[in-house]
């Protein structure tokens, strides 16, 4: 009876709270300033920081946050990253061969220059100078920035699927809702790369830049380091930065390595979160910036004759470029990620066995029992299983009547 009462109260509470109004994300205008050991400002972003977050600045210095006080984060320099390891020219012979084969490759791929999927997790994000508000639920200016990215890519022969799906409100389930959009894009379209386009929330000068003779808003890359595939995405982001530095120096403002989320980057090995300018920049400049950024995409996808690096996310066809790593670049992010997944699996299984059985010996026996009986259940016929395995007098169905 008590239980029923409890359930009713919960249900009522639930219905009542559901009718409450959603507040639009509060424009508290706070952003994080990252200071190095000498007290110099090295990075500014709207992202809140945690100890352990890292960032790569525009000039490729990598910092790690060691202390956070309010909106100020104190970081130590981890070192300068040599991005040239992520961008290597092909040998003369190879590039000749590639140029010769390019029309054939294109024909084999149905004339397509790759396929890219674009979506927006925060559908409300807008630009104050042009859109009037920083947040317009369901119809943010960010979709127009996505359009600019799309049309610029299409001019390069890349097929683009620009999802118009909405994920409002701007709350912490937004990424879970956009996860469904991202997964849909991945499974229906099988793109070569996926981009989730956002905008940052900082003063205008942080993103303002002049690249290729145009006044633009720069682009920031965000890597979610939370999932085990984070290492792979980190590699991918460095490759993008390397290619972009080569083509349009100063266009990528930096990379933020957030340890707190995966931003659905576990769904595709070439997923990236982009921030095109901030809410204080005008949208046209963000559109110009992201259009310039699209120049880099064919390189990244390995679809142009331009090469990619030693552990590249690009084509498999350059010598030794299997994505497993190389002598020059060390283990690739993909290999590290595989290592993490398998490591966590082994530790998890061992911990579970120990906890559930109570002793090493018992745990070992359980494991042995698992390999002999469970797989017999899958693969062996019932008859042979009955004769050969130790717990033979048990019907498989009975095994499950436990609780």
């Amino acid at each position, binding site marked *: 009876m008590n239980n029923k009462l409890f359930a009713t109260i919960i249900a009522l509470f639930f219905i009542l709270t559901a009718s409450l109004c959603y507040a639009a994300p509060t424009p508290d205008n706070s952003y994080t300033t990252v200071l190095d050991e000498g007290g110099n400002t090295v990075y500014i972003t709207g992202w809140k920081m945690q100890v352990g977050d890292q960032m790569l600045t525009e000039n490729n210095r990598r910092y790690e946050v060691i202390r956070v006080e309010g909106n100020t984060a104190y970081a130590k320099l981890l070192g300068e990253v040599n991005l040239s390891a992520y961008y290597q020219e092909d040998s003369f012979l190879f590039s000749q061969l590639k140029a010769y084969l390019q029309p054939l490759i294109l024909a084999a791929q149905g004339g397509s220059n790759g396929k890219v999927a674009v979506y927006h997790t925060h559908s409300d994000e807008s630009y104050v100078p042009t859109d009037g508000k920083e947040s317009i639920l369901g119809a943010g200016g960010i979709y127009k920035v996505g359009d600019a990215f799309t049309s610029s890519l299409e001019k390069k022969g890349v097929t683009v699927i620009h999802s118009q799906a909405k994920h409002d409100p701007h709350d912490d389930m937004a990424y879970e809702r956009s996860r469904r959009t991202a997964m849909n894009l991945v499974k229906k379209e099988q793109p070569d790369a996926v981009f989730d386009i956002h905008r940052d929330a900082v003063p205008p000068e942080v993103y303002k830049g002049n690249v290729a003779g145009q006044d633009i808003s720069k682009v920031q890359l965000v890597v979610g380091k939370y999932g085990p595939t984070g290492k792979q995405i980190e590699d991918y982001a460095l490759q993008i930065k390397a290619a972009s530095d080569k083509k349009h120096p100063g266009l990528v403002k930096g990379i933020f390595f957030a340890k*707190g989320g995966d931003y659905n980057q576990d769904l595709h*090995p070439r997923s990236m979160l982009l921030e095109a300018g901030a809410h204080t920049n005008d949208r046209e400049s963000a559109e110009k910036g992201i259009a310039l950024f699209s120049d880099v995409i064919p390189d990244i996808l*390995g679809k142009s004759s331009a090469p990619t690096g030693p552990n590249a996310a690009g084509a498999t066809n350059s010598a030794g470029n299997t*994505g497993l790593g190389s002598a020059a670049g060390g283990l690739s992010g993909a290999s590290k*990620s595989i290592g993490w997944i398998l490591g966590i699996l082994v530790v998890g299984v061992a911990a579970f066995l120990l906890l559930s059985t109570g002793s090493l010996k018992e745990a070992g026996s359980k494991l042995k029992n698992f390999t002999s009986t469970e797989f017999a259940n899958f693969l062996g016929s019932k008859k042979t299983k009955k004769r050969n395995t*130790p717990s033979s007098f048990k019907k498989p169905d009975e095994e499950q009547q436990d609780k």
Partner: protein
Amino acid sequence: MMNMPLGMILLLVVSVLVYFGLAQRILDRMRMTDKQALMFIAGIVIGSFIDIPLMRSPMEVSINVGGAVLPIILSIYLIAKADETAERVRAVTAALLVAATISLGSRYLPYEPENMFLDPKIIYGISAGLIAYLAGRSRRSAFVGGVLGVVLSDIVHIVTLSGLDIPGTTAIGGAGAFDVTIIAGILAVMIAELVGETREKMQGGPVLGPNRPEGLYEFSKELHPDNSKNLDSKKSSKTPEIKTSGKEDKNHE
């Protein structure tokens, strides 16, 4: 997709194998045999490609077969097959509590996952596990709580959005096998398992050796030599001595 280096493809294969392997171990605790659990996973994978549209206006709502319909059917089956009414009430209560946690949590917790100590998927999976364990003390109600909790929170989301006239799309279970619905269900069972086992451990754990309670499976014959004797006697004669052999019922306790 075919233009990927070997490392990336290997990573995909490994992560998918590990994920589905784990899911299979979890599902075979849900009144399913190993084979049925495997079939169920195949169903989820195939069902991931099927979306059923439910509503076109004022907002687009669809439900994914693999990511929502199948887990919902399994949850309802588990509730229906529960031994007592109290167990059913507890499972439903767990689902309601989880839905309330997600709906309120997503509104009042920081809106960037970065500002939380865990990814929302994980947080809500873990809270589903804890809530369901506290409410029902069972893995099955943990699974039901995780799955139905997320689905209910989606329904609350639809109601809220349409009430406020915000344009939006909701695809319940839309990410298929990788949707928060299934992840929450799996995590919830893992948490219930972890909490349950730890609690048992802290209370001294199951007795090993000759005084082990009847019905508790023991894996190493060395710890309890009687077991192996029993096994032999069982094979040879038709009158098994059950008093010390726990092999009739299996493990997952």
